[in-house]
């Protein structure tokens, strides 16, 4: 995956709770067998006025002028602010791929759904949890100041405002290491192949019914 260390960029706000993965990338785009090309269908049902289908030329579709990412001032959004329980719903990793392909690298919200959170981290997309009051304040700043920019510094785990105000955030040490170095989980796990084999040998003795071939 693409590594992520520091992100400085335009911030947009989607001030609602429970933004689900069906809203982030509707089901018709999940028919793709590819891992890329989801950016133009991020928030498809909110972003366009018509109903889209895969294979269409999406650049010709009518845009919803009220949707935040369609507004000129948010054209280069790289950081998204949103309400709590972000990414709830299905396990579709296409949701994380859609943000990545669109160019959004960081999402800041008071809470994230577990599966989305994991999927994001595996695709160079950083979910940052800040408390509700702070997120509300940042959303207000974004709305009041055109061109509002935040800096996310992953090594020091800080969100920095243009005024120099700093908010710290938490992230698992292991995930942070993977993000900063753009590491592939599988390579790392396979360095422990001996331990996996040893586990299997022990378990086959203890619980052989778990090892029946299908």
């Amino acid at each position, binding site marked *: 995956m693409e590594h992520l260390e520091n992100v400085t960029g335009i911030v947009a706000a989607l*001030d*609602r*709770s*429970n933004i*689900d993965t*069906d*809203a982030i990338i*509707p*089901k*018709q785009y*999940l*028919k*793709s*067998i*590819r*891992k890329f090309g989801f950016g133009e269908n991020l928030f498809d*049902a909110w972003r366009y006025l018509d*109903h889209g289908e895969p*294979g269409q030329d999406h650049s010709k579709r009518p845009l919803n002028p009220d949707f935040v990412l369609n507004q000129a001032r948010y054209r280069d959004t790289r950081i998204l602010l949103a309400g*709590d*329980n972000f990414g*709830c*719903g*299905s*396990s*579709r*990793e*296409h949701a*994380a791929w859609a943000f990545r392909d669109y160019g959004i690298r960081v999402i800041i919200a008071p*809470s994230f*759904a*577990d*599966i989305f959170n*994991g*999927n994001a981290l*595996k*695709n160079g997309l950083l979910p940052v949890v800040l408390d509700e009051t702070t997120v509300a304040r940042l959303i207000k700043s974004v709305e009041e100041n055109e061109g509002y920019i935040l800096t996310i510094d992953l090594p020091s785990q800080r969100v920095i405002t243009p005024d120099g105000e700093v908010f710290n955030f938490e992230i*698992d*040490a*292991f*995930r942070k290491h993977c993000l900063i170095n753009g590491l592939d*989980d*599988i390579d790392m*796990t*396979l360095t*422990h*192949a001996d*331990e*996996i084999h040893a*586990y*299997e040998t022990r*378990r086959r003795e203890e*619980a*052989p*019914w*778990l*090892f*029946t*071939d*299908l």
Partner: protein
Amino acid sequence: MSAETLYDKLWNSHVVREEEDGTALLYIDRHLVHEVTSPQAFEGLQKNGRGLWRTATNLAVADHNVPTTDRAAGISDPISKLQVDTLDNNCAVFGVTEFDMLDPRQGIVHVIGPEQGATLPGMTVVCGDSHTSTHGALAALAFGIGTSDVEHVLATQCILQRKARNMRINITGKLPERVTGKDLILAIIGQIGTAGGTGHAIEFAGPAIRALSMEERMSVCNMAIEAGARSGLIAADDTTIDYLKGRPFAPSGELWDRAVENWRTLTSDDDAKFDVEIEMDATNLKPQVTWGTSPEMVVSVDGHVPDADTIDDPARRDGYRRALEYMGLEAGTSIFDISPDKVFIGSCTNSRIEDLRAAAAIVDGHKVASGISLAMVVPGSGLVKKQAEEEGLDKIFIDAGFSWREPGCSMCLAMNADRLEAGERCASTSNRNFEGRQGHGGRTHLVSPAMAAAAAVHGHFVDITEI
């Protein structure tokens, strides 16, 4: 050893190694695969020249894209067809056991796992699908994963994860007649919210849970994810063991006896500590109906659509307003006065034989109301369909005017041809009422199978405990 919860036991028995920060390498016993979230994973393996770690523990089936009408005619949508063909091809190339579209055992992945005995107590079970929580009903640690993890499990038979916190929801009392596990889980989500279980594994316990059939337990655990929890769990007991006996992939002979002895230990210890404990009484529970665009937006059938203006929290108030507008509902409307256009009985939540029996019992001798443009029953698997036909349930549905379909996910998420049109309202036994879930602009009301059946015959929601 200190007292353990069921989740602790399942977790601890699967840890291969642990990083300093608590990230564990967790061994996966069973991997279920479907066509939507696996193609990129197989492609990744091929690109990197990797094989499968343990081929014979993967079970694949196409369910999301498959048509529910004439199977022999194949899939007409070329993009859906390519996805299903890709699964068939990947399974052939990698040697994965697959129930293809024409296999009589084909069905929804979360129906066929338990049905085949491929899901067993004490296992870790994963699938690239959030409703994998369903399998926790068999005292298995089961959760949904994304495609990167699908590839990771195929290549290493493990997953990297941090341990969740323990939550127990204890249900006292006894569910009234015709009030089901589906109503119970909707009421639980209504109480704790869609993020109530985030970061937790939820164990459902108590006398009302013990009294549930396996099918109802699966409905409850299925929607643990709608309460924010990746995993739902129910301890193993006689109901679990009786359900599994004789299933194709379940152990037999001496191995069965050894397994059962082990499964009897798959309960939380008496003095086990939970991070969160919640108690609810089932005694006076009414059938539940969702009115909004999140499963937590739910009321009893004898209730009313809420008034957003009475909500103090501004974010929640905005959410309610948006939901009411999307759903085309006025505050204060009686749930009895809501009339669906379509009725969908199916999905990994409610498409098992008992669900179909409950719906058929309501439908028997009645006709679908004139205001309903389509009422459909989509069995969860080919074997559920066959059993229902042997019991004559298909005839009851067809005589009443229902459409009797082939198994698959169907209108739960409308990836195949079954969908709502914009503005259409549906009484649905599925699990998500998100905007556009059942079709662009479609409006979903989540209910139990008997409630959906009653809405089909009456043309509006009714209280099935009163008819």
